[in-house]
């Protein structure tokens, strides 16, 4: 039974994605209902799978009955189910938001479901080439979602995203080709054994590592490969930017962790220190430069986008340190960041609808006018900075402890500094919201009360804010889940 669960995580949304375009022949606007029913089903499957992994350990499934390493294998361990549950939860949240905020077209929800399928596929696959295919399904669906905005800007942002994203995925494919040349296999578990047999100092293996990591880094949007990301987040509709900012980079970072731990393994990182240091270096540079660029933005959504560049640096640094503590920290921050950043994008959408304000200057004095939205924004921002007891604090704390354990002092220094940098760009907004006089005249949209905001939209962002604090309580469970199923991969 559990075997069918893992494959239905992918099959369910793919099949459902075909329904809205077909239904368009007769009905308009059924997309939302189809997507919501599917997302509820997806959540049930993800929950059941999580329960199976929690009680019985790792679940494996050979697609079509072709046994690994010849066939494609789907694998669910603790990290997988966390990501799967996150995908379900964020999908439901975004659907609640999009019910009123739109877009309302059937094709939007078709692409939405394709994106859910692609992300779920990336989460459960145990085959490196299959990962490439799901990476591209995810990519194509997100290019479509970014382009679903009304203006021409969203098309330009989507094309830029497409070109850069395709180069990233192609580099990944080239890396897979090198790994195939070295070992003759594509199955992750099989690769980890055969790569070790080939020898970690082999040029083929090193090149494969470099290309695969470079490709995935483009998708995660670490500096300097982040150039697609600010436009894609800022120029797409709010529902799409909340969904994409919460999940696409997150699942790509998960894929990078999967490649590090399941394919190349920690022994590789130990045997080839330069690979680990390169990854740690890119992550640290990303943390610092992402924050500096975020401080320099005047548009709030672009600031949030650059903040992601910085936060994903943190996550990747945690995975590269690769001690159990750091991996728990990186996982917690991965999930926590998704909730916080998705919530932040959604709440900026609400503020823009109500008041027309979209710039740091425009947020002046909104604390009094929009108490709920401003409160949620401030709470999520503080959680992102890492004020205890928010989940943002726990993630960073574990990563720092792990880095201290491993003696990776540069990471410790950058992590502690990064909290100040995060504070630098969020404190500025907090000051605007609550302590600045509304000096700037209300923007035109505010004159007629702005566009309406539904209760569901408000509830969604409030739930995100509550989760940003409440998820802290789940950290021991995450620790135990990873301990049972993932730590065997990273014990050195």
């Amino acid at each position, binding site marked *: 039974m559990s075997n069918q669960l893992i494959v239905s995580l992918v099959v369910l949304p793919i099949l459902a994605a075909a329904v809205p375009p077909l239904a368009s022949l007769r009905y308009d606007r059924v997309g939302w209902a189809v997507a919501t029913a599917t997302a509820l089903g997806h959540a049930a499957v993800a929950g059941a799978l999580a329960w199976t992994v929690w009680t019985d350990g790792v679940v494996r499934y050979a697609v079509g009955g072709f046994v690994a390493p010849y066939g494609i294998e789907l694998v669910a361990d603790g990290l997988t189910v966390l990501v799967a549950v996150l995908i379900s939860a964020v999908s439901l949240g975004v659907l609640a938001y999009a019910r009123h905020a739109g877009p309302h077209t059937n094709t939007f929800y078709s692409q939405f479901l394709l994106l859910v399928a692609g992300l779920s596929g990336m989460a459960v696959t145990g085959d490196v080439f299959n990962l490439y295919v799901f990476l591209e399904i995810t990519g194509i669906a997100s290019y479509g979602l970014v382009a679903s905005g009304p203006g021409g800007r969203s*098309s330009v942002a989507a094309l830029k995203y497409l*070109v850069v994203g395709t180069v990233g995925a192609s580099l990944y494919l080239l890396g897979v080709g090198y790994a195939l040349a070295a070992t003759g296999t594509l199955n992750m578990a099989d690769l980890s054994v055969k790569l070790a047999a080939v020898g970690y100092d082999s040029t083929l293996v090193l090149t494969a590592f470099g290309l695969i990591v470079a490709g995935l880094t483009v998708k995660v949007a670490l500096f300097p490969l982040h150039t697609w990301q600010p436009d894609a987040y800022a120029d797409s509709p709010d529902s799409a930017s909340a969904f994409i900012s919460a999940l696409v980079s997150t699942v790509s970072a998960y894929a990078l962790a999967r490649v590090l731990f399941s394919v190349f393994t920690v022994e590789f990182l130990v045997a080839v220190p330069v690979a680990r240091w390169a990854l740690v270096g890119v992550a640290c540079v990303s943390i610092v430069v992402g924050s500096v660029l975020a401080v320099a933005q005047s548009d709030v959504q672009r600031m949030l986008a650059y903040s992601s560049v910085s936060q994903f640096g943190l996550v990747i640094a945690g995975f590269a340190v690769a001690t159990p503590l750091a991996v728990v920290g990186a996982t917690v921050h991965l999930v926590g960041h998704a909730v916080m950043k998705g919530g932040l994008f959604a709440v900026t959408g609400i503020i823009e609808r109500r008041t027309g304000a979209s710039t740091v200057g425009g947020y002046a004095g909104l604390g009094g006018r929009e108490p709920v939205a401003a409160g949620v924004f401030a709470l999520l921002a503080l959680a992102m900075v890492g004020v205890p007891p928010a989940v943002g604090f726990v993630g960073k704390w574990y990563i720092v402890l792990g880095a201290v354990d491993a003696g990776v002092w540069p990471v410790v220094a950058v992590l502690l500094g990064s909290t100040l940098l995060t504070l630098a760009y969020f404190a500025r907004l907090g000051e605007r919201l609550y302590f600045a006089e509304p000096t700037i005249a209300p923007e035109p949209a505010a004159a007629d009360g702005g566009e309406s905001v539904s209760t569901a939209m408000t509830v969604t962002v409030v739930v995100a804010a509550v989760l940003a604090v409440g998820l802290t309580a789940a950290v021991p469970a995450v620790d135990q889940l990873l301990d049972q199923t993932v730590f065997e991969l990273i014990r050195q």
Partner: protein
Amino acid sequence: MTLDLLATRYNYYAVALLLGIGLYMLIESANLIKKVIGMNVFQTGIFLFLVTLAFRAGGNPPVVTEGAGPYVSPLPHVLVLTAIVVGVSLTAVALALVVRIYSKYGTLDETTLDQLYHE
């Protein structure tokens, strides 16, 4: 030995050339259509690389018949087939976006688009 390798593995020159030309076009050309073409050339380089991997001297097509072995490896061919499908879908989406950009702004030139943005 090295010289021998350099002289016989000319497929890999073509791979490097295609990857280089594709990436250069994609970055350097201001024309959006040419960027998409560059992206395709880049991907073709990877396809050629994968197909070359499958080759073995004296190998036959991997259709199993009595005494026909040795065969070339069929696995990379399957990968390339899948990757071509992915490439076609990407090109379709990219061209659809280009059409939309052209109908909105009336230009395919990246620098002109930048200027329009800043006005």
